[in-house]
């Protein structure tokens, strides 16, 4: 599992992905961690197939007892089907996830972890002195969906928005936006169901100061590529499956 530190300040952001040992027939995914002095938040910690590699990678950055928070942007298996395993590994942790999906996510096994339901209008996660905002992203693509914004690090963890279907071992940052567009187009047109939801999200996100847009699949966007992505997404017709 490749680990890339994408922010280093009073706290850290680490991106995990490009696992060489991942079975070929499951989609590659990016996992993210925010590490503060005493706590560690894992965002979209991944599917159960990925659990061992992911947890082993996290142990380079935090001891098990300091993994205190998990976040699931939505209910998909590549996002959080590992929940039942984290549930047995972590003795003192919370799962922040959409209220809408609580009864569904508990099917993965959630006995010792405390489920903290995120209401439709969002909320915050406080990790030591760091406050992270939970930005509503409903219908992008899931009907109950959130992204995580860190105003200090200027990073938006954007779930499936900005995702791309890539060849194994692709670089972690977009290097040529124009070439990257074709890797994202079908994913967004087919998985995202609502132009209205897309416009509402873009309007909300344009008000945030973002240095890095960090999706759950494919490459991250930094600097001017963040605005390029928002402009491109704005002009894209989604929901093409009907």
């Amino acid at each position, binding site marked *: 599992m490749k680990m890339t530190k994408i922010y280093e300040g009073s706290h850290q952001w680490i991106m995990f992905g490009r696992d060489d040992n991942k079975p070929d027939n499951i989609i590659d995914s990016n996992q993210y961690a925010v590490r503060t002095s005493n706590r560690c938040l894992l965002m979209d910690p991944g599917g*159960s197939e990925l*659990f*061992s*590699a992911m*947890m*082993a*990678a996290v*142990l*380079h*950055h*935090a*001891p*098990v*007892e300091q993994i205190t928070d998990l976040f699931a942007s939505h209910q998909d298996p590549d996002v959080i089907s590992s929940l*039942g*395993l984290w549930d*047995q*590994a*972590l*003795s003192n942790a919370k799962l922040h996830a959409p209220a809408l999906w609580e009864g569904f996510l508990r099917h993965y*096994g959630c006995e010792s972890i405390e489920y903290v339901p995120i209401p439709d209008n969002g909320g915050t996660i406080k990790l030591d002195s760091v406050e992270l905002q939970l930005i509503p992203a409903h219908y992008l693509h899931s009907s109950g969906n959130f992204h995580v914004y860190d105003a200090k690090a200027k990073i938006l963890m954007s779930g499936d928005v900005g995702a791309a279907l890539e060849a194994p071992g692709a670089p972690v940052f977009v290097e040529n936006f124009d070439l990257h567009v074709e890797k994202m187009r079908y994913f967004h047109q087919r998985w995202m169901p609502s132009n209205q939801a897309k416009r509402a999200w873009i309007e909300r996100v344009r008000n945030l100061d973002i240095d890095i847009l960090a999706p759950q699949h494919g490459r991250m966007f930094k600097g001017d590529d963040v605005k390029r992505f928002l402009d491109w997404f704005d002009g894209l017709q989604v929901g093409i499956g009907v």
Partner: protein
Amino acid sequence: MGDIKSMNNQTKSQFVAVASITSELSAVMVVAKEISLAAANAKAIAFRAGDKAKGFQPITDFINELAKETIELVTNINVYALLLYRLTVDEYRRTAAYNKFELVAKTAEGAMYVESMKAPVEAAKNRMLDCQRQFKRDVAMLLGQLEAVMHHARAARVIAANSRIEASQAGEYLQSLQAVAESVDNAAHTIHDNVQRCRIALSIYRNS
């Protein structure tokens, strides 16, 4: 890896064994209800036959009682079988977690915080072993209850034999009463065979 594979195979066969018990027992329940019906039928025939079937009348009460007790026993066993199923699910999850945690500890060799994985590995191992011990205890209890059903099936066969003797003295009612005896005997055979299959499916886990 060999150990993990054989552990997973055992869990799979546990799922199959527990599911097959539920299936066999639902068949036993149907047959026990048939015996109950046969008892009601026999009672009506014996009543019509009057003195000619005097010895048969108390037998019908025995048959009915036996059917009722069997239904009760099977209902209780079904509750246990459901608990056993849940335990198998728990064991599957706990075994999977233990295997994955061990892999984490191995993969993370050299990581700064690898030592912190020791406690979760140990806890996962203990939870898995607890589950396995509980499964063995519950299997032993279930086998005891299945033995009680076997006992009922054997009693039903004795009653069927007595019924045949009494039927032979019932004159023109001989055929009807022999048919009752026959159906009780067949039902007893079916119950015996089905319960025996349950016992075989479970017995390998008693001492595994």
